[in-house]
């Protein structure tokens, strides 16, 4: 933590633009990704793994599209789910029409319908919401989100009210005899689209407009004086982001065969901000990483605790405060040391700091969970299982122990943090020699 605690301007700036030419050059990366995606369902074969991977895939496309706004364009949207949801609703309606035979639309092309829907609405709402950047853009996005959330209850026929719009992918015409009734078949379809959308979004970031989106983010005024209208640049990025959000929405319609108003609500928009930021907004892989980790945590934590959202909120806040470059940023920070084969030197100090962090986390989690158990009053026995031991809520000892652990861990971190940071600096200095 301490390494990123006081990032010098140089280090922060050095990682800010990791998407620069060369990092993802060549097709090797995409081929590797394709192979991983193909093999994955054969490696992980248990329980709800495939459904969760489907969810991750959708989240990846959505988070990447969100980062086209935030990371690349400097636009913080509190309403990006609007385009996800509208694209999804259009896709669901299209699939229903296809099921009735009114429209010829093979299932694999469905996400494209969603994308075009997202694009159309982004093109409409973008006209007024991209006129300004910064705080006002954020507030307008919030207003649009509130408007759409309210409209979803008014326009019953399109949004289906509270039940939403259900659809059935098994009824649409087949393409090449491909059926999509099993989770695994859907998985491969989603994987295909995730890869395609990721490649397209990466390619977009390397086009003139993609580069100028970065320029407008950094300095809108200067961009004007090299011939670019900041408004147009924002508008086009916004439309592109809406298009890919719509694709994610279309994938959602395909996978869950239902869309409800919550898909375009404020919470959905908040979640994509959380996952993107935790992953790291400064690089292309950040949102991917964030989407995977966040989805995993979201669906797993709730099996163990009722206050999972608090943990995710704390994780988010900690990221903003201490590691604003996100997980991907931290990984990228270690790239020079890795190349110089000096990562080994970091293992020791990092392990010590990690153990301290873990002890502190156990203490804090223990306290929070005990408090939760007490307040929620769902533990009549007064005993709660925590960290594989039975903890009595009404005795003082466990409170003391957890407080002690939290304090000890925090003190340990104060000691170990600077050492880890020093080790990091040392490894980098050595690496700089090349």
């Amino acid at each position, binding site marked *: 933590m301490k390494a990123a605690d006081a990032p010098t301007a140089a280090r922060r700036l050095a990682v800010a633009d990791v998407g620069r030419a060369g990092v993802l050059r060549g097709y090797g990366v995409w081929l590797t990704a394709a192979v991983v995606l193909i093999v994955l369902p054969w490696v992980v074969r248990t329980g709800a793994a495939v459904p969760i991977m489907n969810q991750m895939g959708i989240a990846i496309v959505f988070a990447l599209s969100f980062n086209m706004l*935030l990371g690349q364009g*400097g636009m*913080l949207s*509190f309403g990006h789910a609007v385009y996800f949801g509208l694209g999804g609703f259009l896709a669901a309606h299209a699939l229903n029409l296809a099921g009735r035979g009114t429209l010829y639309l093979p299932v694999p092309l469905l996400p494209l319908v969603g994308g075009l829907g997202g694009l159309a609405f982004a093109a409409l709402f973008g006209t*007024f919401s991209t*006129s*300004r950047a*910064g*705080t*006002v853009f*954020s*507030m*307008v996005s*919030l*207003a*649009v989100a*509130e*408007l759409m959330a*309210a*409209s979803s209850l*008014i*326009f*019953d*026929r*399109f949004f289906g009210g509270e039940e939403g719009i259900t659809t059935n992918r098994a009824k649409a015409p087949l393409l090449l005899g491909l059926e999509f009734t099993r989770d695994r078949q859907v998985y491969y379809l989603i994987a295909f689209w995730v890869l395609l959308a990721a490649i397209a979004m990466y390619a977009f970031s390397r086009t003139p407009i993609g580069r100028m989106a970065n320029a407008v983010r950094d300095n809108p005024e200067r961009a004007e004086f090299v011939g670019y209208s900041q408004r147009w640049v924002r508008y086009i990025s916004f439309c592109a982001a809406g298009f890919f959000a719509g694709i994610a929405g279309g994938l959602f319609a395909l996978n869950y065969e239902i869309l409800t108003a919550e898909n375009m609500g*404020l919470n959905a928009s*908040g979640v994509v*901000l*959380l996952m993107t*930021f935790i992953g790291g907004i400064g690089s292309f892989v950040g949102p991917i990483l964030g989407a995977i980790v966040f989805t995993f945590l979201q669906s797993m934590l709730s099996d163990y605790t009722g*206050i999972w*959202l*608090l943990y995710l*909120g*704390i994780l*988010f*806040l900690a990221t*903003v*405060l201490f590691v*604003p470059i996100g997980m991907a940023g931290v990984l990228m920070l270690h790239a020079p040391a890795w190349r110089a084969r000096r990562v080994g030197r970091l293992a020791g100090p990092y392990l010590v700091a990690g153990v301290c962090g873990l002890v502190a986390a156990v203490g804090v989690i223990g306290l*929070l969970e005990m*408090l*939760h158990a007490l*307040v*929620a*009053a769902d533990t009549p026995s007064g005993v709660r299982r925590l960290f594989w031991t039975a903890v009595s809520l009404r005795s003082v000892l466990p409170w003391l122990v957890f407080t002690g652990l939290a304090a000890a861990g925090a003190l340990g971190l104060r000691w170990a943090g600077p050492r880890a940071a020093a080790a990091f600096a040392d490894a980098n200095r050595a690496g700089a020699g090349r």
Partner: protein
Amino acid sequence: MEQIVLFSILNGLVFGMLLFMLSSGLTLIFGMMGVLNFAHASFYMLGAYFAYTLASRVGFWPALVLAPVLVGLLGALVERHGLRRVHRFGHVAELIFTFGVAIVIEELVQLVWGRPAKSYQVPAALDFPLFHLFGSAFPAYKAFMLLVSVAIFVFIFAILTRTRAGLIIQASLTHPGMVAMLGHNVPRVFMIVFGIGCALAAVAGVIAGPVLGTFPGMAQVLGSVVFVVVVVGGLGSLSGAFVASLLIGTLQTFAVALNVSVGNVLMAVGVPAAASAALHDVWKVTVAQVAPILPYLLLVLVLMIRPTGLFGTRET
């Protein structure tokens, strides 16, 4: 009809002044620091919860003073140890930070006070109808709310126009960066302003909690509207916030009171009735049904016509 108009005006005033108490703090913070505090309504919620707990221990009146002080201190802490850290990463980073604060506060409130609504009641001394008119009662507590918010308004106004500190604040609203030139300790000024802004929000929470309900979602219910108020009024403009608060307060109460459908309105402005088939869903909707989304429509409209807001002068 008179009854509806009169009570709508009164309720609009009460709600509008409540909005102003929230938006004035938000505007002060924004004007001086350039930060739009997404967690502002969360401090309003904390005010209500603190007051609920304090009221059951020491009574309502001490709670009315203590809760805002506590929340103000908490706000100052958040500024000192959180916001100041992310300040150098720019306004978007600050907005993201306060967004995170809002999430964590909402979760912490649920952790500490539980999820069900709290029965934070109007103090017995004010729990009577002030007057009856046209068969309907106006509760004394609402008059009290109006009184408190007007008092706060006068207080802010006096400070801003009569004291040196107020003049500095006013100057920095229009010329950010000026405080530093006058040789003031800017970080400390920021911390104090942030704390005061949060305390103002907390006062609103203390007095609104018994009427609008004290529950974990109360921040979200009011939050977005407050942002609309400050953007419509013009970011950083106190008079704008005042006008927009009253405008939105009365707009919402009157919209509820009117028994008019959107179709009627459209016909009145000349849209042919033939359009009703195509716009069926919208046509049958009453204005009352869309009352809560009117502020957002207003925001979009204002930004299209006057991007700096009604009274705003600053581009952000």
